[in-house]
């Protein structure tokens, strides 16, 4: 099957380039050793790995919250380091938990990034209000997080990241805490939003189906320490929906991913790792 996305992505500049990344927490076994990988602008890439292998640590490195022992991280065309990129608000980080401020309304939570960037309050609110309908959050602007469902809170959190950063979006298992039904609708929702905005997204997940459904490419981290990421291109046409998961190509990709994870021989085929 001809993959249009892939062809489009080929000529694009890099949104993220990681070279020779080394990191270990003090006194512990290394998590990353000589890790290289690239993400092109406008790509949706998932990193698929078992829990506890260092996925969240990778995101903390990419957003400059912690510093690697060796290696370089270059973000965007200007090749900012992770710390620079954060300071210049080039990164939209969406943590695993929604991490909304309980004392702020939806409006003020979503506007946090703009507010920190010094955008005048009225202008920030206007930008949030403009996007609320497209996120299915119309009419919630005066509500507080505890008045919303889990799925809605994640959408507010996503909106906050969307408005907070520019070049690269880091999504850390954003749907893992949601129930299965909500998760499916959130995945379809994210597909829609992404197909509209075409931002560069790096998505961490431990859910094989989710990775295939959403991504252009899936990077698999099978062993610890992570020295390389095996790559699988997902040749499914877009726009995609949950129906896509019934496609023969989907199942073939799933088989290949499970193989890369070294799971097929040991355990029966399951949806998540």
């Amino acid at each position, binding site marked *: 099957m001809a993959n249009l996305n892939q062809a489009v992505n080929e000529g694009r500049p890099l949104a993220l380039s990681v070279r020779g990344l080394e990191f270990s927490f003090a006194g512990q076994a290394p998590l990353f050793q000589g890790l290289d990988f690239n993400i092109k602008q406008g790509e949706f890439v998932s990193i698929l790995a078992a829990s506890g292998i260092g996925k969240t640590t990778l995101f903390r490195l990419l957003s400059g919250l912690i510093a690697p022992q060796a290696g370089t991280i270059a973000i965007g065309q200007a090749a900012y380091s992770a710390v620079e990129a954060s*300071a210049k608000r080039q990164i939209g*980080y969406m943590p695993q938990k929604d991490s909304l*401020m309980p004392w702020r309304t939806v409006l003020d939570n979503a506007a*946090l990034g703009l507010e920190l960037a010094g955008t005048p309050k009225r202008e920030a609110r206007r930008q949030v209000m403009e996007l609320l309908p497209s996120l299915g959050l119309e009419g919630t602007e005066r509500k507080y997080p505890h008045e919303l469902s889990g799925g809605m809170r994640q959408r507010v959190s996503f909106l906050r990241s969307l408005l907070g950063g520019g070049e690269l979006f880091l999504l850390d298992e954003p749907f893992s805490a949601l129930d299965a039904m909500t998760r499916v609708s959130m995945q379809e929702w994210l597909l829609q939003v992404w197909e509209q905005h075409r931002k560069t997204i790096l998505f961490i997940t431990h859910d094989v189906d989710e990775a295939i459904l959403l991504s252009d490419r899936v990077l698999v981290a099978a062993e610890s320490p992570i020295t390389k990421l095996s790559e699988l291109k997902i040749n499914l046409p877009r726009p995609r929906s949950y129906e896509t998961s019934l496609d023969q190509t989907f199942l073939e990709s799933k088989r290949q991913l499970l193989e890369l994870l070294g799971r097929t021989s040991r355990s029966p085929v399951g949806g998540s790792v």
Partner: protein
Amino acid sequence: MKRKVSTSIPVVVFVVLLAAIWEAGTRLFDVPHYIIPKLSDVFISMWDNRDLLGKHWLVTLWEALLGLGISIVIGTLAAILIDRSTLARKTIYPLIVGSQTIPIIVLSPIMVMWFGYEIWSKITVVILFTFFSIAVNTADGFRSADPDIGALMKTMGASRRDLLLKWKLPSALPGFFTGLKMAAAFSVGGATLGEWLGGEKGLGVYTKRASNMLRADAVFSGVLLLSAMGILLFLAALWLEKAVLAYRRR
């Protein structure tokens, strides 16, 4: 509003019932007035001395409020220091907690020696009574701040000031108000004790003099007014908490 009225009914009924038992008991068993005066006598004494009591009441209220205000400032500053510095967390925090094992009542006469019979000795005792609950509860509030929100703000280029004002302080507010409610109730006891140990004005002085004269009705009228003051201060703190943390009731 409706809910508020209905929740306060049981306690009002209970207080009225206790008052009735007091009045009936003292009449029925003919209790000597210097042991337990009749409640009606307490109110009569309160009415007869209303001008004097009003003046003393305001003096004690002023001491309690001033001490409370200073405790809020230094308690919050101590909490910020404890939160910001690991050294302070390991040194000052245990010391503040440990200081609660000191019986303040024993320490209070020293305050009078240091700060004299003027208002400052009373205010110092109020601070001793109230500083702890504000500092410790606010420090715990800071500690409860969600680190993920802080990390997120850092990826958005937040400054240290942003982190304090938009993340740490709002996170600490519920803890601060828990401390403030306790401190508001303690402050009246602190002011009264300060007055007992040496002073010329305030309900502590009034009740001490009345007690020396075996005027139990006057002592009880002072005690009732002090307790009303404590309740009022507590309710004011509660009201402030509800106004500031309005989002939690939604």
